[in-house]
């Protein structure tokens, strides 16, 4: 589905169903140098269960136009504008990695619009090492190799969690390469900088009034679970779920992550009876 936000085209994946803003809505926000396709299995599951799924490509990513936004705050404001454009008054926000910070900040800015937050691979501060930032700037392809390797649970891949015959690590690598090819140079660095400098996480978490589900990959090297304590400790209504994955948890445990989101959605969107 193509929408228009601030005069630029925005692509939203809707889980294989026609988007219907009258249904309880779930927004899925991807991480750095990614796009909506990281959410395909969960998006399908949620849409099949009667939710209106909105998985946008952030500005400057994938099929969405516009320049990449340079701060988590700007991305959060953009998400709220997207909700207004799509006719969604209240939604459950789900974010992965950088997208988790965006979801958190959006919930902080417009608590009345957010029924619940699911933060996957969320740490705060989400520091990116100076070495990785420098590599992202100087040699994006090399940085992508590092991120692809660090984003997966195992040195050697297990059997086809992402689907028969699929090499999950190569999907991560090629996706980041493709997003880079479509964007002006420097996107990975821009995204990483936005994560690195975001400073409102603790304050936003402390003031949240909605239920929050944290999903952590036990083997996550990009956003290790220990880095989430500042958030999990600050949130009043927190539930922490742990999955046996690395950072790319939607691909490494698609069914389990989808199940957690489905269960959480039933609670926060009051759709348990559906």
């Amino acid at each position: 589905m193509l929408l228009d936000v601030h005069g630029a085209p925005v692509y939203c994946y809707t889980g294989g169903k026609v988007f219907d803003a009258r249904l309880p809505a779930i927004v899925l926000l991807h991480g750095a140098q990614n796009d909506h396709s990281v959410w395909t299995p969960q998006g399908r599951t949620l849409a099949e269960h009667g939710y209106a799924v909105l998985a946008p490509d952030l500005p400057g990513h994938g099929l969405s136009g516009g320049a990449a936004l340079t701060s988590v705050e700007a991305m959060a404001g953009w998400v709220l504008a997207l909700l207004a454009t799509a006719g969604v008054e209240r939604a459950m926000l789900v974010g992965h990695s950088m997208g988790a910070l965006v979801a958190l900040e959006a919930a902080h800015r417009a608590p009345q619009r957010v029924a619940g937050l699911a933060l996957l691979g969320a740490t705060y501060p989400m520091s990116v090492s100076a070495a990785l930032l420098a590599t992202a700037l100087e040699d994006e392809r090399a940085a992508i190799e590092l991120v692809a390797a660090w984003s997966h649970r195992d040195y050697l891949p297990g059997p086809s969690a992402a689907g028969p015959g699929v090499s999950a690590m190569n999907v991560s690598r090629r996706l980041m390469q493709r997003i880079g090819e479509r964007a002006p140079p420097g996107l990975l660095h821009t995204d990483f900088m936005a994560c690195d400098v975001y400073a409102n996480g603790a304050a936003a978490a402390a003031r949240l009034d909605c239920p929050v589900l944290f999903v952590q990959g036990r083997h996550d090297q990009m956003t290790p679970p220990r880095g989430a304590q500042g958030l999990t400790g600050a949130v009043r209504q927190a539930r922490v779920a742990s999955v046996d994955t690395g950072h790319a948890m939607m691909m490494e445990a698609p069914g389990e992550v989808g199940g957690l989101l489905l269960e959480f959605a039933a609670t926060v969107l009051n759709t348990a009876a559906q």
Partner: protein
Amino acid sequence: MSGPRTPGFDTLALHAGSAPDRASGAGAGHPLASSAHPANALLEERIAALEGGVAGIAAASGQAAMHLGLATLVGAGEHIVASRALGGGAHHLLAHALRRFGVDTTFVDPRDPAAWRAAIRPSTRLLFGEALGEGGLDVLDIPAIAQLAHEHDLPLMVDASLATPSLQRPFDLGADLLFHSASAFLCGHGSAAGGVLVDGGTFDWQAAHARSGRFATLCEPAPGCNGMVYSEESTVGAFALHARGEGLRDFGAALDPHAAHAILHGVETLGLRMERHVATTRRVVDFLLSHPLVASVAYPELASHPDHQLAQRILPRGCGAGVSVELTGGDAAGRRFVAGLRVFSRLADGGRARSLVVHPASSTHWRAPAGQLAAGGVGEGTLHLSIGLEEADDLIDDLKRGLKLAGKGA
């Protein structure tokens, strides 16, 4: 008091160890035996990993993998540009069988970039060639042809059977799609037939579609799948998703999972075998060059080979196990030579543990017109050798036997 009921014998025989996944409702995530058997999935994922691709799809043969790759991209009224240096099966599929379905192919001299460029039409959907040709006759300039393809918003597909990822990774060189006859080196022992199609995940179907309207099957709603758009489901794996979801199911050339098991055994030693194949081939080539009855030897590592410099650049680990030999006595000497061999088998299925010899003009290429054979470097007297894993000295002794007999009639 009644305890919990435990499953009976026949239920355990069917389900123990692979209980259906309650979240997805599918058995162990592999819903259809025809399109996603776990043994096939393991082979597919392993080859995808070795090639650096996003997904593999196992097929019943290399030819089936090739057809699946082509049929995913082309339909009636559309067009392929292919190297004219192809094996007999590939050539016949493109030149004759696909024409009946309205798919036209232009064959070009693979060493002539201008010919590739000139053959591209608005209806062209892909460029295709063999990464390493039979008998060591041709090396495809993958970087150059891929660049040319991409300039025209087209993908390059290559047959990677005879180089294997152990010697060359076509995606690293710019190719977008590849397939293997897994019956060749991947299996390596002649114990199973199969093929694997691999999606490199490198080609941007959506960008090409936006500019030219091509690849609508990947980038527009699929009527048979509730309007699903493959390129939206998977930004980098749309081709593989379509090839599996439609091609493998509809055309049905799925791989027998037992064959997948045999091929996987072969893949475990692929790296070791290819090193040995190459080392032995180099010794055989040296011997042949030194023999007075040998008029010429074609192997891309030789300075005399037209693709020598290219091969040094894109096949530095070795140029495979295929060698072409021309004897001074022509066709008759070639036939006597083959008759004198005791270790080499007279078989066309190259890339096996056993050494093989074929006379292409009377076997693999008998359907091709003579002029086309000559253009591809195959003469009436040309012999193709596929060097196996026997002792190099035994192979050289055997070749001496054959050459002795070949010389007797002169």
